């Protein structure tokens, strides 16, 4: 029996996708789990794994064409089957449907499929659980599970507010708004640091520099830019985080000399391949991880009735993309060395820049680092990236005159760290102690071993 | 003549049923009427089934045939086939023929007595001149439903004849052990209903008595109560070894076989010859055999039809 192949929700917030490439031609055999095409979603370009077996009888949406979640994109069946009625149906549906699907258009047609076809975070797929609990053991209402499966949300990244920590509809509603943890890291700085009109740039700037922004339109007229799905999500999630977590900010200046010297020595020892040099970010990530080990309350998440202390330390780094922001996550930083962290980070950043990160790779960070140093920003305050309760904003390394012990004036390399904390989870004293300890660790790493 | 023929038919059909039960064609309860034929046949012969109704309990094969049910439909119902009178859904205890005004075939002891009384209410209400015959056994006479019904029939002047077929055993219990009053005709008197007791082995006597009661019901709208003393030659049902009576007792009643009694009466008055009797008997046997064959050849009801006729 021939069946229509439907567009699936390949990201938690995807409502429609564009077919970039077809990997199969009409007439080719298709087996379950074969990649039949690549689809650009609101987040990244995803591979579409087939759930049907048979022959690809007809491609309904060509390369470059778009389809909403739930729309038919192809027909698979036995070769020689008459599929005219299926094709008609598809055309009629495409013609008739003008209204954009508001919520979950995929609900009915996709029900049977998401678990297999979509490479979203589910029990079998996810490699590093945020807090180590298996999805099967999680308490969640049937409705919440359905919502999670339809929207491709990892239940482990959701805080349950029901009895016994049960995840219920209102938790899923919240999670949907902040589901994919778009790094809302780059926020407008305070104290006039951010240049007016300058776009927020992230820690890692692509080799070619920041993509050139178009200047004001030539004619001088106002221009309405339609808000993309991605931007909508960023907007929603940033607002949600800012409005629900009571933010406070702690600023400390850190002597970066020791760290930079260590980095230089390390890179000198490494093989001379391109891209082998370890970035300062990897150092920062490791220092933060080691400090977090001593401050579990900072590696935690507000659950309503409880505070969830994460079992592992997963740190995200904010990365700028052409059209937005994403936060790839390095998992289990507590048990990895700086070199390994750096290697993983480089792979993740690559994927981020080519829009190929999977939801497991950009969700569920327990702590986030954002840096605008390379853009020249001295200091700024960032917006917390859920499910974490704190974010570290890193300014540029600059030279400052300091008073030495003997009264003379020396020059040091300094950077200003600003820690944003969720006051529901992290009290001022705790945040301060953490930040202070972080400074000490960065400046005297060896002391950390004592 | 008709009485004799009917009694013979009942006898042969019942014997056939017993045989088929032994061959496992019929299952569950099967209450045979052998020995009591005179009562049903004699009584129903007094009716006009276009306006009269018959109710009985679960020993109903005889009454069904006396009302004119097709033996094929009866046997097929015993076999549970879709061609049975109740489409296989009733079985031995729930034979019904709405056309012939034979309203069962009721399984709960005594529970049909008020129902029969209700049919009489309708006749009275609609001024129809009909009569209801309500048969039940000595086992039912102590049920509250019996007493409630007689009271209602009297206060409302209902055209109904209650006939208690006293075959002397309520299943395994001799009626004398469980009855404060052993002359059941007295039961009617408690409700100011005329009652009489009579010999249930003599079809002509039964017929006469019932005819009178039916008249009273039709003309005067008065209920009557008749106790017909009879005997069943087989156990209460097929699973009853009937150890509660002696062989001698059984033999004694067998010598009072109602069929033989009527035959003797008719021979005496030259209304029949032995050859004629044998011919009728052979005919009845043939009909019985054919009924069994018909039942055997009939299809089972489709399983899905179990959902049919739950609600109208």
């Amino acid at each position: 029996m021939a069946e229509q192949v439907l567009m699936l929700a390949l990201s938690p917030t995807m409502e429609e996708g564009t077919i970039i490439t077809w990997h199969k031609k009409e007439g080719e055999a298709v087996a379950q789990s074969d990649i039949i095409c690549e689809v650009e979603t609101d987040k990244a370009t995803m591979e579409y794994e087939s759930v049907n077996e048979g022959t690809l009888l007809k491609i309904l949406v060509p390369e470059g064409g778009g389809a909403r979640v739930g729309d038919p994109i192809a027909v698979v069946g036995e070769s020689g089957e008459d599929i005219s009625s299926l094709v008609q149906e598809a055309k009629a549906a495409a013609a008739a449907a003008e209204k954009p699907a508001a919520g979950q258009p995929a609900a009915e047609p996709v029900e049977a499929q998401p678990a297999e076809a979509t490479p979203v975070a589910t029990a079998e797929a996810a490699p590093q659980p945020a807090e180590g609990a298996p999805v099967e053991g999680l308490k969640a209402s049937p409705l919440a599970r359905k919502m999670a499966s339809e929207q491709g949300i990892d239940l482990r990244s959701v805080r349950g507010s029901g009895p016994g920590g049960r995840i219920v509809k209102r938790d899923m509603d919240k999670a949907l708004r902040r589901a994919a943890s778009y790094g809302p890291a780059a926020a407008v700085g305070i104290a006039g640091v951010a240049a007016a009109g300058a776009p927020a740039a992230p820690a890692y700037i692509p080799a070619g520099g920041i993509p050139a922004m178009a200047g004001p339109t030539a004619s001088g007229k106002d221009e309405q830019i339609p808000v993309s799905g991605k931007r909508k999500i960023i907007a929603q999630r940033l607002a949600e985080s800012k409005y629900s977590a009571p933010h406070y900010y702690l600023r400390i200046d850190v002597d970066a000399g020791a760290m930079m010297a260590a980095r230089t020595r390390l890179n000198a020892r490494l093989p001379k391949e391109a891209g082998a040099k370890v970035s300062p970010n990897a150092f920062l990530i490791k220092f933060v991880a080691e400090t977090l080990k001593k401050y579990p309350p900072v590696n935690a998440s507000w659950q309503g009735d409880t505070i969830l202390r994460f079992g592992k330390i997963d740190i995200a780094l904010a990365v700028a993309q052409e059209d937005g922001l994403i936060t790839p996550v390095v998992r289990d930083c507590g048990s990895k060395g700086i070199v390994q962290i750096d290697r993983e980070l480089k792979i993740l950043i690559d994927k981020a820049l080519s829009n190929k990160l999977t939801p497991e790779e950009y969700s569920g960070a327990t702590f986030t680092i954002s840096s605008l140093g390379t853009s020249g920003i001295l200091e700024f305050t960032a917006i917390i990236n859920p499910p974490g309760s704190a974010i570290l904003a890193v300014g540029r390394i600059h030279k400052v005159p300091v008073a030495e012990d003997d009264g003379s004036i020396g020059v040091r390399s300094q950077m200003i760290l600003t820690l944003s904390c969720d006051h529901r989870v992290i009290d001022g004293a705790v945040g301060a102690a953490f930040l202070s300890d972080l400074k000490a660790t960065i400046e005297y790493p060896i002391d950390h071993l004592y | 003549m008709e009485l004799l023929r009917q009694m013979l038919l009942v006898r042969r059909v019942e014997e056939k049923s017993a045989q088929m039960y032994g061959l496992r064609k019929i299952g569950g309860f099967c209450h045979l009427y052998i020995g009591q034929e005179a009562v049903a046949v004699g009584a129903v012969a007094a009716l006009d089934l276009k306006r009269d109704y018959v109710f009985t309990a679960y020993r109903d094969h005889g009454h069904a045939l006396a009302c004119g049910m097709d033996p094929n439909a009866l046997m097929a119902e015993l076999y549970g086939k879709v061609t049975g009178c109740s489409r296989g859904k009733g079985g031995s205890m729930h034979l019904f023929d709405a056309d012939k005004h034979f309203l069962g075939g009721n399984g709960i002891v005594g529970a049909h007595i008020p129902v029969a009384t209700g049919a009489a209410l309708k006749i009275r209400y609609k001024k129809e001149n009909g009569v209801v015959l309500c048969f039940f056994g000595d086992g039912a006479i102590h049920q509250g439903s019996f007493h409630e019904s007689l009271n209602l029939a009297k206060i409302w002047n209902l055209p109904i004849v209650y006939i208690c077929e006293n075959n002397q055993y309520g299943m395994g219990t001799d009626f004398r052990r469980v009855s404060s009053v052993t002359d059941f005709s007295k039961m009617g008197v408690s409700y100011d209903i005329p009652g009489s007791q009579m010999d249930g082995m003599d079809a002509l006597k039964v017929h006469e008595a019932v005819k009178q009661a039916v008249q009273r019901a039709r003309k005067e709208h008065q209920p009557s109560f008749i106790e017909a003393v009879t005997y069943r030659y087989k156990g209460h049902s097929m699973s009853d070894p009937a150890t509660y009576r002696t062989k001698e007792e059984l033999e004694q009643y067998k010598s009072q076989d109602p069929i033989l009694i009527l035959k003797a009466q008719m021979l005496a008055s030259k209304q029949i010859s032995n050859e004629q009797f044998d011919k009728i008997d052979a005919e009845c046997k043939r009909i019985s055999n054919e009924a069994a064959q018909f039942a055997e050849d009939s299809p089972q009801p489709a399983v899905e039809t179990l959902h049919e006729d739950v609600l109208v």
Partner: protein
Amino acid sequence: MPVIAFRQALKDAMDEEMARDENVILMGEEVAQYNGAYKVSQGLLDKYGPERVIDTPITEEGFTGVGIGAALVGLRPIVEWMTLNFSAQAFDQVLNNAAKMLHMSGGQLRVPIVFRGPNGPAEYLSSQHSQSFQAFYAHIPGIKVVAPSTPYDAKGMLKSAIRDDNPVVFLEAELMYAWKAEVPEEEYLIPLGQADIKRAGDEVTLISFSKPMQMVLEAAEALEKEGYSAEVLDLRSLRPLDEQAVYTSVRKTNRCVIIDNDWPMAGFASYLGWLISNNCFDSLDAPVELVTMEDVPMPYNHGMELAVQPTVEKIMNAAKRVMYV
């Protein structure tokens, strides 16, 4: 539109049907000369005479069976049980005769009869006179069981029940007889087997029938004042059950509380709860809650009597439990 009492709505229904079809008769204890133990049949004897409005002795099994017999052969009797408590004595007639006649006769015999009377606890009557019977009757295939909660529903449904060719057990309640509401003068029928949304809402579905409905609506009002939107579904009919109405509502609100003024074990609410769990599983944000009577015989003491039954507070608490607030 005239505002009339529940008891009058019932009377009007019977009156209209008796006028329409001469086969409809009414029988029961005190229905004629006394004008009805609860005055439901007031005036019917005067209008239709003793042949059609019949006082019976206190013989439930007897007159219930008589009603069934009359129905078998063409009449359309209404049998009034003074209270459903006394119907236990007639239970065999309903169970074994009325319900099964059509099926065991292979479709030959119909029983177009209505059994009606007040069901469930009234006040101060102690256990033997406070029994709820919905579970016992709803259990039986071959009959219909209905339970209206407003004068409007009562009239339309009783008319339909009388016209129905199946046996119908029509459950009323003593304390509802005085409830007043608008009932149109023009004739109307309400089909059996249809539920009714008495109040629309979207956060939780409250399902009930018969006397508790008033309390359920009060609870919904109170919940609204606290900011919660409850949908109130009046089943009106237990057999047949309007499953689609139930599922549509629960799939909309994702949460359900069933209120049944009966004992909990093997009660009607338990089966409905299972149906919802089974058919709305993926829509449920919380398990289905039941608010029932306590599992005890009804005491005489009035305070205890009220504590045994559902209350507005119990209903609200159950609703809040499923909303996790």
